[in-house]
């Protein structure tokens, strides 16, 4: 955690780009690691190569989209409930 000592380190554009590269490399490594490390599947599919990665990504995608769709019906302005006066 570097952010404490160097206040603006994380906010610079070129550093954010670097972080993306590092993050991508880590992502690739976790998938490639399955080539050497045996992942035990309890129900066959979950032992497939890269299953965790794809499952995690797709599930999150679906959940975000579902929440977004639900939000169309459920979202209301902050002041919707009258007694919610803004002193919280």
């Amino acid at each position, binding site marked *: *955690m570097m*952010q*404490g000592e160097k*206040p*603006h380190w*994380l*906010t610079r554009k070129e550093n954010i780009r670097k972080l993306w590269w590092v*993050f991508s490399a*880590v*992502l690739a490594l*976790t*998938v490639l*690691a*399955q080539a050497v*490390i*045996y*992942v*035990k599947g*309890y*129900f066959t599919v*979950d032992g497939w190569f*890269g*299953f*965790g*990665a*794809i*499952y*995690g*990504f797709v*599930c*999150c*995608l679906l*959940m*975000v*989209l*579902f*929440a*977004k769709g*639900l*939000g169309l*019906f*459920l*979202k*209301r*302005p*902050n002041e*919707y*409930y009258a*007694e*919610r*006066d803004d*002193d*919280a």
Partner: protein
Amino acid sequence: MPELMSPALIMIAGALGIGLARGHLRAAMVLLTPLLTLWAVWQVPDGVQNTMHFLSYEIEPVEGSPLRRLFATIFALMAFVGGLYAYRLAKWYELTAAFFYAAGAIGVSFAGDLISLFVYWELMALFSTVVVWCGGTAASRAAGIRYAILHLLGGVVLKVGIEGVVVSTGSIQITPMLAQDFSSWMILCGILINAAAPPLSAWLADAYPESSPTGSVFLSAFTTKTAVLALILLFPGEPVLIGVGLFMVVYGIIYALLENDIRRILAYSVVNQVGFMVCAVGIGTQMALNGAAAHAFAHIVYKALLFMSAGVVIYRTGRNRCTELGGLFQTMPVTTICCIIGALSISSFPLTSGFTTKSLISQAAANEGLVWVYMLLTAASAGVFLHAGIKFPWFVFFQKDSGLRPKDAPWNMALAMVIFSALCLLLGLFPEWLYRFLPYPVDYVAYTPGKVVFYLQLLLFSGLAFFLLLPLMKRTETISLDVDWLWRRGIPAAMRWLGRAMQPLRATGGRLGSASQQLLRHLTTHYLGQPHTADREERALFARSWPIGTTALWIAILLSGYVLIYYI
């Protein structure tokens, strides 16, 4: 004899003392009471410790078992660290209420019969309401009333169930049962209301975020987890709970994704995490129950930690919405790091407490061959990382720079967060420390290379999804409707509409009413005379004055008639 007393009584005494003491003495009581309670918790041996007579029942206020001690331990520990976090900022009555509330939770942990369980259950309901009210705003007063109504309703439902069970079995013992008849269903429903299960789950996200920054730390710990303990004791292996738990898991994630208020995000993720535990109780194997207990223990620690970091942010900035925050990591390093540790723990990231406890539950589902349950729990793990693991720290401490440069946490709040962060990591690094205290023997290896790789893939790619979908996750100045809409807007609106629809009917009713009133008045004046008799007018039959002799004559006639009939 002190060793036979419930450790909850120490907490109650401490709570009263906090109200009476001032200054340093009060601070000392806040910190020492939970430690003394913790010591007392570990003095309770297995089995029923004492009995008392109440009406015609044998009450068992203290019954020890590894499971009960485990829950009481974390409740006492929570009161200690929560007290450390709160004691300089919170009002004395908030601390007193919070300690009474903790005493209720510890009392439930050791309750050996349904009646003591109920008494401590209601103690919790009462004082948690006071904690909500300590938010001190108009919104917290209203939310507290809604909270109290729902919990008193839950208490009544529980009481109906308990009485039904006592009538049908004649026993007030806490023994495992299944929801088969009306009374056991009522008990289950009463407990599930406290567990924030559907359909009445909205009380949690309604009330917790309205409490004070310190109050929400206490609130996050006790009510839902005592409900989990009660479920483990009373309904292990009840299949309904699997479905209920899975619903809670998904509901918590979806609503947390929609939310803008930082403590409401955390409140929904309480529902999500309790869903994991409820589901585990439903699976009901020894491993699953171990998982539920261990996860409750770990959850109290990291959820309190997350609420603490949110509390510090609200205390320092006075703001509680994602849209108003951001960039705080620059001046709040301690809070940021502690929050990240809590966020990683709730996401069950390897090396944190969530990984070593939640994976017990997933493993139990896999062992039982429950494909869908396992797959949904795994998907939910990814979702937790999305909504609590990244979303919460990202929008509070990073994202755009809000320009706010608040100071970091005061020393006592920072120390409380550091203690719980350390506990999150210790339980993640040395899971056997916790496994040793679980109710059943643990035959499980938390860290295998395969499991770690699988979870890293799952979680890191969820992270990728978060950052790629960031435009879709943009926070809006909104709230989301939940079930509480029904009693905050729906039912009042329906009543108003009904009132308007009934208008013509009421008019007809009014006319009929006045006609019937006139008829009655006519009848009464005819037979009883006018209401006022001060004038000299001739009265109707029953309202006239009669000479006393006439009365005596009639009494004589009636009596002789009676005697005559008696002899015949």
